């Protein structure tokens, strides 16, 4: 039947070079940077840890805390407020803390130290719960077991990896085999009982904690291994050595890929976006974002000083902060604002849920919310859920929103001059493509001349201004030329009557001259390049 009126399709011009991808836009949307000096002595921020989400069987509510290790202290930050909550500095006088790690229930923090001691603190009271001094040299990494709350591991410069149980005083297992400092290591996920560690002996070793003894798998690298990170699948491990990151497949027992995107040593690895992105930080001050299926760089961030530690802190399965620790002692926090509306919407959803479940009073009490007088009347019957029927609230009955622009209407009614005026005075963000769309549509309707004719001194000016602005755009040269020629054809005999119009025409001339000169230069360059390429070909032919 009668065809539906659809908005005019916008003209899409070819894209220029170097446009930001959606991915890069996403990473750029981490804004509101916060720069802190947690040590207050500009000690380098060496480690940032964020406990994995607490399993649901734990009764404690996750507090969303993360620990930042710098100098001789570990500072605990709240992810919600971005403010330090606690500071733990009960380390030795000259001791430097390493790798402060909060247990996933948020109660206990463990950290190593330069002295070789490992200390466990109660997060609330900051009391020292346990101190182990078994390592002979400094402990660089301590990690909690992913499932078992009392187990932990440590990596030390004394070339050992040790496993600990919280109640016992001695290490439960010592894994020997590394030839040099062990600076990184962690549990493999999914209760495999595997441990991975990286050392300055340029190897990444996999240990089986159930068996003990020697490493079950060794990957040799070209340089000292600075960081290791298991993938959530448990089948791959990422290892940073020098300026490369290698992807190691532990099922096939071979490296899959080497990422050589950094200029200097890669110091830290972190997963983001639920494991679909990898962020690497290096001494070159760059954070690079890789996608984890084909390991392409999809985004990057720049920091002013070498990066020592990096962590993406998530909340509700969404990336929330990018926390980066710098050599200069600065902790940089960038946060992606989820938007107030989003939060409001969530609040409203909760409220509606409470209403439906009949807990609205309870909810109001919790929120300390008072409702106005008409409230009872407004919601009357809305909470009726009797007779097992679902309440269906129909979608908006206004019908489809008319997306036609004001000029679209004028165009359809044949008011071509009006349509052109409307689009030229449009203040929309996409006013420029809109104008091109309208002018193209006028050309298609053989109405360009009609739209341009019968204009006076005032109404001609926007068109001339548009021409002046758009003469240099090589993508629409034909269109601009046509409009300009039509205008000149129509108004040539009127020139000299209005100073404004004359001035604009003069400007247009100037601009055209500039563009012509630019194209001349381009021709010259092309000629030279052609000559060079022909010469090169001839040279090749001669060599053969």
């Amino acid at each position: 039947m009668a065809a539906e009126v659809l908005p005019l399709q916008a003209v899409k011009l070819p894209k220029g070079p170097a446009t930001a991808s959606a991915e890069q836009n996403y990473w750029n949307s981490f804004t509101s940077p916060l720069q802190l000096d947690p040590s207050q002595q500009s000690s380098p921020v060496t480690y940032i840890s964020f406990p994995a989400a607490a399993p649901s069987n734990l009764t404690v509510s996750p507090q969303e805390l993360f620990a930042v290790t710098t100098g001789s202290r570990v500072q605990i930050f709240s992810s919600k407020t971005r403010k330090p909550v606690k500071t733990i500095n009960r380390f030795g006088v000259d001791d430097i803390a390493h790798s402060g790690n909060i247990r996933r229930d948020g109660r206990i923090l463990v950290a190593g130290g330069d002295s070789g001691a490992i200390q466990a603190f109660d997060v609330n009271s900051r009391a020292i719960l346990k101190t182990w001094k078994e390592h002979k040299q400094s402990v660089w990494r301590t990690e909690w077991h992913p499932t078992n709350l009392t187990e932990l591991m440590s990596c030390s410069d004394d070339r050992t990896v040790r496993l600990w149980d919280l109640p016992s005083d001695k290490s439960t297992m010592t894994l020997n085999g590394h030839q040099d400092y062990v600076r990184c290591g962690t549990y493999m996920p999914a209760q495999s009982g595997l441990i991975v560690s990286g050392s300055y002996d340029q190897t990444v070793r996999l240990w089986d904690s159930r068996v003990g003894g020697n490493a079950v798998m060794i990957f040799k690298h070209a340089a000292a291994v600075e960081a290791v990170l298991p993938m959530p699948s448990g089948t791959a491990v990422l290892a940073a050595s020098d300026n490369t990151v290698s992807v190691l497949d532990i099922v096939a027992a071979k490296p899959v890929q080497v990422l050589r995107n950094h200029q200097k040593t890669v110091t830290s690895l972190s997963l983001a976006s639920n494991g679909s992105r990898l962020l690497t930080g290096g001494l070159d001050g760059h954070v690079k974002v890789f996608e984890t299926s084909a390991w392409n760089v999809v985004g990057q961030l720049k920091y002013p000083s070498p990066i020592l530690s990096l962590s993406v802190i998530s909340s509700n399965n969404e990336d929330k902060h990018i926390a980066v620790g710098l050599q200069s002692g600065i902790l940089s926090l960038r946060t992606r604002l989820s938007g107030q509306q989003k939060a409001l919407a969530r609040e409203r959803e909760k409220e509606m849920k409470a209403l439906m479940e009949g807990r609205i009073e309870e909810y109001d009490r919790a929120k300390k919310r008072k409702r106005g007088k008409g409230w009872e009347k407004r919601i009357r019957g809305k909470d009726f859920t009797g007779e097992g029927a679902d309440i269906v609230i129909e979608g908006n009955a206004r019908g489809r929103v008319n997306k036609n622009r004001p000029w679209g209407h004028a165009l359809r009614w044949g008011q071509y001059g009006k349509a052109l005026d409307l689009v030229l005075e449009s203040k929309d963000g996409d006013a420029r493509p809109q104008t091109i769309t309208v002018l193209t549509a006028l050309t298609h309707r053989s109405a360009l001349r009609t739209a341009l004719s019968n204009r006076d001194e005032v109404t001609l000016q926007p068109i001339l201004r548009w021409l002046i602005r758009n003469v240099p755009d090589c993508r629409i040269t034909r269109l601009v030329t046509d409009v300009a020629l039509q205008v000149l054809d129509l108004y040539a005999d009127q020139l000299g009557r209005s100073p404004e119009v004359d001035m604009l025409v003069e400007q247009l001339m100037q601009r055209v001259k500039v563009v012509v000169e630019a194209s001349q230069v381009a021709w010259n360059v092309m000629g030279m390049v052609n000559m060079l390429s022909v010469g090169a070909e001839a040279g090749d032919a001669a060599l053969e």
Partner: protein
Amino acid sequence: MNESTSIPEQDQSTVDAHKQEIIKTEGAVKAKPKKSKKKAGSRWSWSPSIGGWFLSQDPVFTSDEKYLLLSSPKALHVYATDTSTLLRTLSKPSSFISAYAVSATNPNHVYTANETGLITLWDWTEGKTVGRWDIGSNVRNISVVRDPATDLDLVYSHESSSSHFVHVHALRTREQGAPTELKPIFKRKAPISGMQVLLDGKIVVIAIQKSVLIGKRTKLGKTALQDYEYVWREFQTAKRVTTFDAHVRTADAEGKTSGEGDHIDLAVGDQDGVISLFEDILSSLNRIEKGRKDASKADTADAELLRPKRLHWHRQAVASVKWSRDGNYLISGGAETVLVLWQLSTGKQQHLPHLTAAIENIVVSPSGASYSVTLANNSVVVLSTTELEAKMNIIGVQSRRVDMEQFPRGSEPSKYPSDIFAPVPMVVNPAKPSQVLFTVPSSQPRHENAGRRPEPYLQTFDVATQHNVSRQALTRNNATDPNMSPEGKRIDEPNVTFIQLSSDGKWLATVDEWTPPRSYMAFLDEGTPEFHEQERDFRREIYLKFWQWDEKSSQWVLESRIDNPHLLEDVGANARILDVVADPSGTGFATIGEDRSLRIWRPKTRTRAGVTVRGADKKGEGLVTWSLHRSLQLPQSLDALHTEQSEPEQSEHTSLLSHRRPQHNHVAFSSDGSLIAAAVSDTETGVIHILDAATATIRRSITELSLARVSALGILHTNLLIITDSLLIWDLVADELIRCIPLSISPSLSPVIHLSINPSSNSFALAQPHFELNATSTVKEAQRYMKPATSVSVYNLTEEKAVWETTVSSFILALVCEKQGRGFVGLDQNCCIRVLEPEVSSAAALPAAGAEEVPVEAAAGVEKMEVEEELEESEEENETAVPGLESLLSGESLLLHAENDKPVVRPEQLQEVFYAGGGLGMLPPVRELFDRVVGLYARKPRTVVA
């Protein structure tokens, strides 16, 4: 000579003038659709034609409004209004219908008339002929009223020979016992454009060019036909009358009894879009006549003296105007594609806009509950009067129609618009082999003679069920935009020049072109036409579009659009695409352009920074982009022959600037997709390159042949088929010419030769359009235009000469090969689709006929009766209306009469049974068919409901 040419004043004895039911043979009918000189071993035949443009006459509602009668030149169709299904087709082979009208006395009877003067009375409910008469003249229009004296039909017919007549016929059959009579009532040299008979023949209104005549019968007391006398009153209008409608005002509406006469209101639409409304026209004419008694004999009046109401909204000619049943509204329509309802008492208008095509006819149903609107895209819509919602939609084949009468009589074929016979892009869907896709214009008004219209739409037509499947736009269009520029010129949409389907039927590639009209370029005009044309070429927009079939919405969805796929780099202008072919082995298309470059396009899964981009709706499927896969600049013929250096570029450059020679570049894929043949040729020279499809490198260049004006190219197995001024077959393996068959083609028609290759039957068909001089004996001198014809020949590789040849009396605009059959599908200028297939042996052909009857007899008593009737009549003639296969298949007719406990069989189910084979005419064995049909009808009703 018969009486139709005699003048009205003569007294006549008419009984013997008519031959009653005399024609026993079809020998007298001169209009033969084709003459085929078959060879002894002819094994190919054309199927009956499908489609055709509906007649310009108003469609007719039956009195109960359950059916709509609509006629194409070939057959009269009966459609059910509630389901839009074709119920019955009434046709005789080899006769064209020119007019039809429902009997006034028996609503089940309908008259059809043809150009040779043969009037047939049908019983359309049963599909049989009741009577036939030959009145021996060219009938243009008929109207039937009830004779008050005898209660039988009187047929008013508008006939034409050297001048135009209106005759009244009393056509009587043997059973009625009365004699068949004729009475001429009107004669005029000028052509009659419309005729309306009111009040059982008391009033006759006729429109002739710029005047309207109203005839009133005198001596109403005398009822014999020979006493029918009319007094004609004429008035002139300012512009040519395009349409009119008269309405009889009922007495009670007036309030007082109209003793002295009938009140006739007349609405006249003219060429300028003005509707003039004459209220009570008879009395005003009387008044004027009385007013100037002295100027006796002046029986023509000026329309202005009658003081009509002027209703002017239409910008262009009013195509149709009709009164509502109560006389309070006028309904009009025209080229604006807007249906306008005028409320006469208040002057308010109501509009139904955006009907996508010009309105041709409007009919108000007998009860006034619905309007039938005939659109200029060969479709009929029935709207409910209250909501203006479509109740029924009948869509025919909408492809380009070339009406030879549009051209000036006696003009040379070379003066016809050059591209009017250009090939219509058409393909058969490999996924659904009974569906044919072709491009169609948005609207083709009958009265407009403005050259070729662009074809921005794609129509999918099912040849097996003879139904329109879908229609969608391929380019921007004017469906909701003004179709007229400010200067009053028609705005042309882009024209789709090529469509191709990938071998799996999932991808559609289309090429569309748009060039600004010449008038638009006026601001650049410097008086040199070459410069002007060149500037137009620079502003040409060419898009190559790739569409994916979307099963959910059952339409093609645009996936990629390539702007300017070919470029003339040195001048920075878009080059036209001259040929597109689909890769038969994989998904891909090859194009060749004016720039002499061959480009191969293939799909790519879209990635963003290495990650596959997945669509939101298609689960897990990566989005696909089409992009240029290979590109190769093909050397020009002479260069390849003589010099291998880059000297030609210079000459090319200059030739481009001065004038470009028309190019005849073509491209073809071998059936395994490994080889591409690309012809680069112009009017003087040419060369064919054989390329490796995977790498797009030239393996061999054929320069030994004279290859100017290559008009088609194809590869059949290992043979390259080239059409130039002769048919060349080149063996690619032996690398030699194996056959050369000269063809007689005039150079102007060489671009419209069609070559189609069907590998499954190892044959190829060649359609060569040409003009024939009219057979002088039958047609008058005035109609001495050239007759179009197409000679179609089928070749295969084993035989030296054509296997089969025939000449069709129309231009074939497209010829493609069937995808699951051994034949070819052709589309001609009259919008008829015909299938050319090798004849199957009689044993295999029989099941189709047998199987048709089985379900019908088992299912519905009505149809069964008809079969019996047919048997009774069989001694009379064999050509009584055999219901078309489609009317049986439509199944809705069966439903209408079926009892409640009968199983419900939907037409699609039956269609599945009959077209399970897929290909046309490839039915499974009889037994299987029978079992399946019985299976459908013998089910228990319960299971059907579920």
